[in-house]
């Protein structure tokens, strides 16, 4: 963590704060390129006095990170400043920190159904966005789903850095009705899941998996939260062959009553 002091003294100009909806972070950049790539995606405001975390983004040949939870300091070493992978890396890093705040960030799209949310999780290119468009329901978020534990329930929050107008105007947190793990299939099938299977699939779809970060305290918080989430939200495997009728009748079935 010695580098952090160095950065604080030498890079006063390249810093900003970003509001993750739940917490405000100060972010410091080693190069202008990182700053500009960041600014394209996140709504940047001047640094705040008492941020929840201070993050230093540094250039390196290898992706790695340093997290000191007690000092609320973190470093992200990154090797590429092209906008797309950089967004993924930074978002996954933020989401990793949010696990300690009862927040899970899934790689998922979501739609609004009867004042609740239905999520579609899956690997890149599997059709999460396509399914949410085909459902005909108002879209709530795309790519990253911020889910926060509130008492015994889990609420979906709007993705804080998403500014696109295509998503639902209703931006209040929503109870989660059901989560589908999406697969491309030759037929349309929905399968129930064993909790063990749900834990595995859910962990694979967490945003943190894009980064090779490890901190035992954060890992423990993450998996405790994840297993609570699995116990509270109905999860299904959805093999989908782009049949709109099937999708709409599935969403009508009121799976996972709230």
């Amino acid at each position, binding site marked *: 963590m010695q580098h952090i002091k160095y950065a604080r003294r030498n890079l006063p100009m390249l810093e900003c704060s970003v509001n993750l909806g739940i917490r405000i972070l100060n972010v410091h950049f080693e190069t202008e390129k990182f700053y500009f790539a960041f600014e394209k995606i996140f709504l940047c405001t001047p640094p705040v006095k008492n941020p929840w975390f201070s993050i230093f983004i540094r250039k390196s040949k290898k992706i790695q990170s340093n997290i000191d939870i007690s000092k609320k300091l973190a470093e992200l070493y990154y090797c590429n400043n092209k906008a797309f992978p950089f967004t993924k890396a930074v978002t996954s890093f933020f989401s990793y920190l949010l696990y300690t705040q009862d927040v899970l960030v899934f790689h998922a799209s979501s739609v609004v159904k009867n004042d609740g949310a239905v999520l579609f999780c899956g690997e890149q290119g599997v059709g999460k966005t396509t399914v949410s468009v085909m459902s005909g329901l108002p879209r709530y978020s795309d790519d990253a789903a911020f889910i926060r534990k509130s008492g015994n329930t889990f609420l979906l929050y709007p993705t804080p850095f998403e500014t696109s107008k295509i998503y639902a105007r209703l931006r209040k947190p929503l109870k989660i009705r059901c989560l589908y793990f999406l697969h491309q299939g030759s037929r349309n099938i929905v399968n129930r899941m064993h909790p063990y299977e749900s834990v595995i699939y859910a962990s694979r779809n967490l945003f943190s998996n894009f980064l090779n970060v490890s901190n035992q305290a954060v890992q*423990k918080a993450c998996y405790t939260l994840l297993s609570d989430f699995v116990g509270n939200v109905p999860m299904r495997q959805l093999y989908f062959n782009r049949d709109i009728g099937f999708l709409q009748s599935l969403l009508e079935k009121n799976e996972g009553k709230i």
Partner: protein
Amino acid sequence: MRKKMYKRKPNTLFRQIGNEFIFIDYGESRFYSLNIVASRILQMLGSPKDVYQISERVSLEFEVPYKKLLQDIRSFLQVAVKRGLVKEVFITESE
């Protein structure tokens, strides 16, 4: 005299989801689905215990002939050690 005892691996987590018991090795990102007996055994191995101490405790909770129980626990521990869920520790006892 050295006594062989068993201790659960650190950085692991127990969760009950509905009627299922899930053992999460968050250090290695591995997950195990356990039955109730296996979950009770791993739960009690937060501190080192030998096979007799484990068997005694389990016999208080489940109706199984003691000899059979001892045999089952031995084979379970063997598998758990092999998979790295449980570590063997040797404690020196004064006679």
